């Protein structure tokens, strides 16, 4: 894949994601896994897991991962630039010209509708990943524990990723012994 195509792909993803890192998930699955077949669903899940527990913006971390896979360091930089291009322009416009944009009720209505669509897309995406990776009792237990710890316990995702990594290492190590 060429650098320009990589840039345009992440430009598209960066300008369509609304509401934080996970709203890019449906777009990533469509563009990277299904349409261009750059990475597999498993790889995407791995990237997002690492992106979650490393410092920085999740979307940038994920873009860097994918960009690196396609074109090494240059690809990593190009993909990240793609993600930030449209947001930079948009926010500058909002800050400069349309300072009161969020005061118009219609803007709020539009985004309320967009958010519902994004939630539906995320539901379908999560189901796709779930069916692929949650295949037995152990993996279901890990899935449930992570969900409950975050939703009910308010535990930081960092600890959950680190905890799961330790469980995986210990399990693998014990099996080999």
């Amino acid at each position, binding site marked *: 894949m060429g650098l320009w195509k990589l840039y345009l792909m992440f430009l598209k993803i960066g*300008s369509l994601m*609304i*509401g*934080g*890192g996970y*709203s890019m*998930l449906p777009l990533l699955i*469509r563009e990277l896994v299904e349409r261009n077949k750059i990475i597999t669903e498993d790889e995407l899940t*791995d990237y997002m*897991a690492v992106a979650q527990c*490393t*410092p*920085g913006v*999740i979307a*940038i971390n994920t873009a*860097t991962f994918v960009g690196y896979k396609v074109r090494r360091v240059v690809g*990593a*930089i190009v993909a*990240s630039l793609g*993600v*930030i291009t449209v*947001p*930079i322009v*948009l*926010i500058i416009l909002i*800050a400069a010209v349309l300072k009161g944009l969020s005061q118009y009720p*219609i803007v*709020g209505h*539009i*985004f*309320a*509708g*967009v*958010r*519902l669509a*994004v*939630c*539906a897309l995320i*539901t379908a995406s*999560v189901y796709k990943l*779930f069916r692929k990776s949650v295949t037995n009792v152990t*993996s*279901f237990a890990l*899935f*449930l*524990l*992570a*969900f409950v710890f*975050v*939703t009910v316990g308010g535990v*930081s*995702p960092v600890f959950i*990723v680190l905890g799961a*990594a330790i*469980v*995986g*290492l210990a*399990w*693998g*190590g014990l099996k080999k012994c």
Partner: protein
Amino acid sequence: MLTFLSKLAILFFEFFKTGLFAVGGGLATVPFLRDMGAAYGWLSEAELANIIAIAESTPGPIGVNAATYVGYLVCGIPGAVVATIGLVTPSVIIIVLIAKAIKKYYNSYLVQSLFKALRPAAIGLITAAGFSLLMTSLGVKANFLRFTFSADWYSLLKLGIYGLFTFFAFWKKTAKIHPLFYILAGGAIGAVLSL
């Protein structure tokens, strides 16, 4: 001129620091923004609240949007660009290093068993994030599993729209439609129905 350049340098340094230490996504940058506001007098609490609201409701990663906005407030367009580049630079460096290491050891037994446990947990995290976004979008206040759902007309309407979109996202005939169309349709429905 010197003060302008030094302001740019401070912006870059401050947002580099934020990108280096804020773990867990866009909203993790908020405490850093608050510190900056207090240390340099760049923004008030009210401005901070505005920035978060705008960053969350416009396209793009929340942390990137917030950095662009603060940078613009402090130094105009150069500030917006410098702050954003500062924020993403540590990510790119750290992830490139990790990607290199993973590439080398991805097929090793231990890394594979690590990811085998990590994948379901990561999906649990994504589900939790999607769940909380859904609760916010439906206007449900969740507090330690005690959900207060105001069953007024609008909330039910929103639930119905979410249900409809979810059905289309799963239905074989419509599942292949690009997410962009769902997003546009959502915006149109939101505008027409004044959600």
